[in-house]
């Protein structure tokens, strides 16, 4: 399907996301109590954790779409994987930067080569490499480069469970699992848990909005390639 300028934008969902974000910001700054030991900077937690979780979601979509593309073919699966990888890199970058800003006042340094931080950085680099590979693909080689990218997208996902369980498997400085924790579930006080879950919902909406826009762009790119090839 060739997108046109008259194709409706996803503005109603964007408006809902913006309203949900405002409610979330109100909760973060005016409703949730200040954490006793870390102080104000702990409020970064409400964007840091959802960013990381939505990055996991984005890479899970890359995984599923890449498997479907390799198994069935179909431009739409490839476009979905490519779009989700780009949005996933955005959210991984957000998780890394907010984590570093939290670490400076709490740990006294922006970065430590802790297992979870290091693996998250590796995950970020894997999908940046995925995007660079796709950007360097020769015109006319989209199908072949899509298949190679699909393999990178599938293999790269291995880092996600490693990151999630790294705080249990290895000794590091990153705080342990405080939300999904089998030993004491949940550890967070009520207001903090509600606000965090609300922000996960908001970030899921944002992911949907970004994916809608990015998929529309991918369809336009495919239409342009077909037009230039005279198909």
């Amino acid at each position, binding site marked *: 399907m*060739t*997108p*046109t*300028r008259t194709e409706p934008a996803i503005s109603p969902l964007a408006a809902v996301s913006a309203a949900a974000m405002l409610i979330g910001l109100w909760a973060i700054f005016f409703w949730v109590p200040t954490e006793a030991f*870390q*102080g*104000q*900077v*702990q*409020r*970064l937690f409400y*964007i*840091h954790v959802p*960013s990381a979780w939505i990055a996991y979601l984005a890479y899970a979509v890359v995984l599923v779409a890449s498997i479907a593309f390799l198994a069935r073919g179909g431009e739409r699966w490839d476009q979905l994987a490519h779009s989700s990888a780009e949005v996933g890199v*955005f959210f991984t*970058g*957000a998780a890394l*930067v*907010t984590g570093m*800003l*939290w670490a*400076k*006042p*709490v740990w006294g340094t922006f970065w430590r080569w802790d297992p979870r931080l290091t693996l998250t950085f590796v995950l970020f680099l894997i999908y940046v490499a995925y995007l660079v590979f796709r950007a360097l693909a020769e015109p006319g080689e989209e199908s072949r480069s899509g298949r190679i990218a699909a393999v990178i997208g599938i293999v790269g996902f291995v880092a996600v469970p490693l990151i999630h369980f790294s705080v249990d498997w290895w000794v590091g400085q990153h705080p342990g699992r405080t939300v999904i924790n089998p030993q004491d579930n949940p550890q967070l006080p009520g207001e903090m848990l509600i606000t965090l879950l609300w922000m996960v919902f908001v970030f899921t909406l*944002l992911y949907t909005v*970004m994916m809608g*826009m*990015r998929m*529309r*762009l991918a369809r*336009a*790119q495919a*239409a*342009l390639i077909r*037009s*230039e090839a005279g198909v």
Partner: protein
Amino acid sequence: MEPGFIFLAIGYALLFLAFLGYLASISARQRRLEDRLEQLQGRADSK
């Protein structure tokens, strides 16, 4: 002012700027592609 507050403010400001910048970049890329598509369609129609 608590020192952590500066990092908190930088974190939120950076996230929102990055988010708006990313959406603006998608929109700009979309406009460029649509312009190019229209040019190609115009050329094809004029032949």
